[in-house]
């Protein structure tokens, strides 16, 4: 339990800033929809499509991706550069437990960041005489959660592979961009699922796809754990 508490303290600044950003921008998209609509799409699209283009497929989704990347950073390699790894590793807990605590905390935070706009949009829309179906919004929340956890896992793995302060973040971004470019190549849609398309609902998002992405995320975190157990600190 205290390891979860430690993981929370380590990530809370990033998480709370992310929460603030997601909440604030969701509010802006809803309350200033007339002004923002001209920026993100044509004026004559429906409110539901505007929300999809602006939030679930648009800028807010990209911000969410960056935030989940940031949540994945940290861990023992970062602690080594801060000089605290000795204290952590001298505790009578296995490295697997350290990894599990950080992974679980990150997954929960990733899910909360995903659910927040999905909850705020239908809740705030009536204040501007609009409506957005709860069911649809929460469906996007679930898709964001699954996709976000995979992105978190990639960043988590990068943090184990690259110990530098910025190198892990840069490596995670390069991995993600490389992955996106690969999925955009002609014919690649038959072989690789684009997690961004899954998140905005335009790609395959059935139970099998979501299960496969979840398994891939867990396997990535497991790989990070395995590497951690074999490293010298």
């Amino acid at each position: 339990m205290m390891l979860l508490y430690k993981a929370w303290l380590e990530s809370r600044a990033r998480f709370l800033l992310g929460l603030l950003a997601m909440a604030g921008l969701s509010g802006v998209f809803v309350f200033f929809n007339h002004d923002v609509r001209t920026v993100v799409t044509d004026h004559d699209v429906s409110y539901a499509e505007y929300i999809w283009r602006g939030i679930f497929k648009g800028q807010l989704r990209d911000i969410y991706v960056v935030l989940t990347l940031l949540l994945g950073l940290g861990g023992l390699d970062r602690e080594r550069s801060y000089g605290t790894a000795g204290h952590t590793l001298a505790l009578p807990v296995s490295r697997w437990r350290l990894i599990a605590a950080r992974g679980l905390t990150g997954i929960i935070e990733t899910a909360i960041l995903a659910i927040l706009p999905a909850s705020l949009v239908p809740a705030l829309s009536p204040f501007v005489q609009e409506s957005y179906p709860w069911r649809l919004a929460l469906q996007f929340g679930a898709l964001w959660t699954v996709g976000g956890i995979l992105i978190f896992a990639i960043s988590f793995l990068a943090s184990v592979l690259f110990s530098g302060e910025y190198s892990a973040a840069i490596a995670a971004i390069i991995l993600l961009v490389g992955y996106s470019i690969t999925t955009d190549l002609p014919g690649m849609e038959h072989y690789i699922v684009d997690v961004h398309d899954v998140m905005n609902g335009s790609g395959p998002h059935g139970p099998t796809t979501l299960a496969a992405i979840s398994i891939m995320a867990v396997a990535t975190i497991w790989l990070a754990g395995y590497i951690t157990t074999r490293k010298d600190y």
Partner: protein
Amino acid sequence: MDYVIETRDLSKQFGTVQAVTGLNLRVTRNQVTGFLGRNGAGKSTTIKMLLGMTHPTSGSGLLLGHSITDPKQDLEARRQVAYCGEDKQLYAYMTVKQLINFTASFYPDWRSEVAASLLDQFQLPPGRKVKALSKGMRTKLSLLLALARRPALLILDEPTEGLDPVAIEELLQTLAGSPADGTTVFFSSHQISEVERIADRVCIIDRGKLAVDLSLDEIRQDHRRITLSFCRQPPEHLFDLPEVRSIETNGSQMIVVSSHGVDAVVERAKTAGAVVVDIVPVNLRELFLWTVQDHK
């Protein structure tokens, strides 16, 4: 003999650098053992291998009877070991109180009354963030976290670094008294005078190898510095004796440090026409310098 630390041919290689080479180290229970060596001699690497932070390249070791190469056994050993690292860095984002509560949660044998007493003695503000503490205060907090339990073994890496003289004195007294409480102390230091004050035994590591493993009594009683004067250049291999630890030649003068058998050295010197100028006991500083500077 009951050992809390026992390594057998323990080695660690980082790329092309051999940090520790075939280390056979034994630390006796209920004693204070000082671990000396130059920078980069392999002290911290040895400690990290003992605590499972770094994996040995070869060899084996036992920490409180648990294998250091088996993660499960090493974890079991860590329940009874307190460690105070050389960095003295602690979680900057926690307050002193949060860090104490966090650390206490891992040890069923945590002594809250001792923690409270040390908090008061070290004048640590419970509500202050660790990042706002001075290095000296962080060192004290690190020591509090180590001493608030009754560990079977206390491992400290450069414990007095960053402390003021009063705090050093208090710490040394605490460490010297620890064996009476059932805690064996194993500490590395560059401060030879501190080691000499409180250690029962001294291990000197040089270039990854154990060069000296002696009690302070053995050093005081058995080791002698013999100054000899020759009327001509002294012969090169005159003192090829197992008890001779080092030889330094300066013109016609020769200084021999002998661990045992002063008589054998003196006899050979006289046979070669030397005059014995001086025979004095060796202190730890001299022994350390003679060991790591490679005079022979």
